[in-house]
């Protein structure tokens, strides 16, 4: 299951992304998950995160020239993949 106490991993990715992409977020992330991972957004798991991040990074790098912002955004997404307290 993708969900945890803080909402599904997809919701968390959307929340982090919203800071960077604003209104385009939902459409952008949903398309990335569906097209590159061939699964529905709600089926996203932590295990998919690294692969998803590669594609998000490539896509976002064509929306902003500032690679610093891209790396900052990637670092925020990477944190979502880290084990939470009590998780092995």
């Amino acid at each position, binding site marked *: 299951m993708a969900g945890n106490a803080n909402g599904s991993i997809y919701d968390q990715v959307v929340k982090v992304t919203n800071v960077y992409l604003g209104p*385009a977020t939902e459409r*952008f992330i949903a*398309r*990335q998950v569906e*097209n*590159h991972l061939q699964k529905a957004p709600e089926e996203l798991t932590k295990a998919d995160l690294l*692969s998803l991040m*590669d*594609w998000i*990074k*490539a*896509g976002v*790098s*064509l*929306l902003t*020239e500032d*690679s610093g912002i*891209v790396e900052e955004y990637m670092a925020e997404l990477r944190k979502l993949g880290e084990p939470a307290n009590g998780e092995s």
Partner: protein
Amino acid sequence: MPQITEQQAGAEAMFASIGDGAITTDEYGRITRVNPVAQELLGFTEAELIGEWFPKIIVAVNFDDSTIALLDRPITKTFLTGKPVVAKLNYRHKNGHNVPVSITASPIIFEDKPLGCIEVIRDITLEQEIDRMKSEFISLASHQLRTPLSAVKTYTHMLADGYMGKLNPAQKQSLATIISASNRMNELISTLLNITRIESGTIAVTPKSFKLDSAIEDLMPELGLMAKDKSIKLSFVTRDSYSTSLKTDSLIFKEIVTNLVSNAIKYTPRSGTVTITLKPRRADIMIEVSDTGWGIPKYSQDQVFSKFFRADNIIKRETTGTGLGLYLVKGLIGALNGKIWFTSEEGSGTHFFFSLPRQHRQPAKPK
């Protein structure tokens, strides 16, 4: 390793010598390689392009000169879909003029990881010029065809109406066939002329307020006859939560509806149904034309509005048809600042939707 170096040298030589422009980027969208054809096409030197952020230095604009949003640029779309994206647009040359190009953007993927992108660019200036000349020729030929056709129609009707004497049943039948064929030819000439007007940006739009439901009602007798010929049930529904009045060109509107409905009738088997639904909304009015016809195969759906396109499943059943109807409809809707889209399932039918905004503005003239 010498083998890798040889492979690299081969790849470099191939990249430099291909006849189309080619540009590669890294994962941050920065240009890593550019071949001589691309440099020539865009007017930049290799040194001016390498390391630059692709979307910034290579400006992309539509053929009407409007800017293409970053999310809609092929290079971005290729990363959204993971597949090659083909598009025709203008790239801005270093000296400021637009170069019409056909491009294919593809992601560079290594071990499932996107490493960057390659864009192959072809200059289509000549192609566009030939297309323009072809349109001019069609326009001229169509005008020239209309004059003799008018004489054919006039005298055929006079014969059919008995002005030249009483006709026997076989003569009447022959004249009915001539009239029907000349009507079809007249329609085809009108379609060709309209297409050339749209493509050259000379279509006249005369906005006037009118009720769209009344305009559709006006068309129903003629459309009803077409439907009756195939025992198709044609109905018209209005969901009038908002006003059905709109300031737009009523003749163009009627032509759009006639084309979509006659198309639906044509591609629906006998005893099927065709429904026109008018849905006035706050900011626009949407019209849906749905049928229980043969539908459009999934693999052909992205070509539906292309010139001369006819789906495989239709060619097998209907030998007549030019593949110009939906291309024309899209152009006419564009002239009214509207939008068209559709959903279709092969074997189940098609739903065409178009919306016209309540605020009319002059559309941009195609370049």
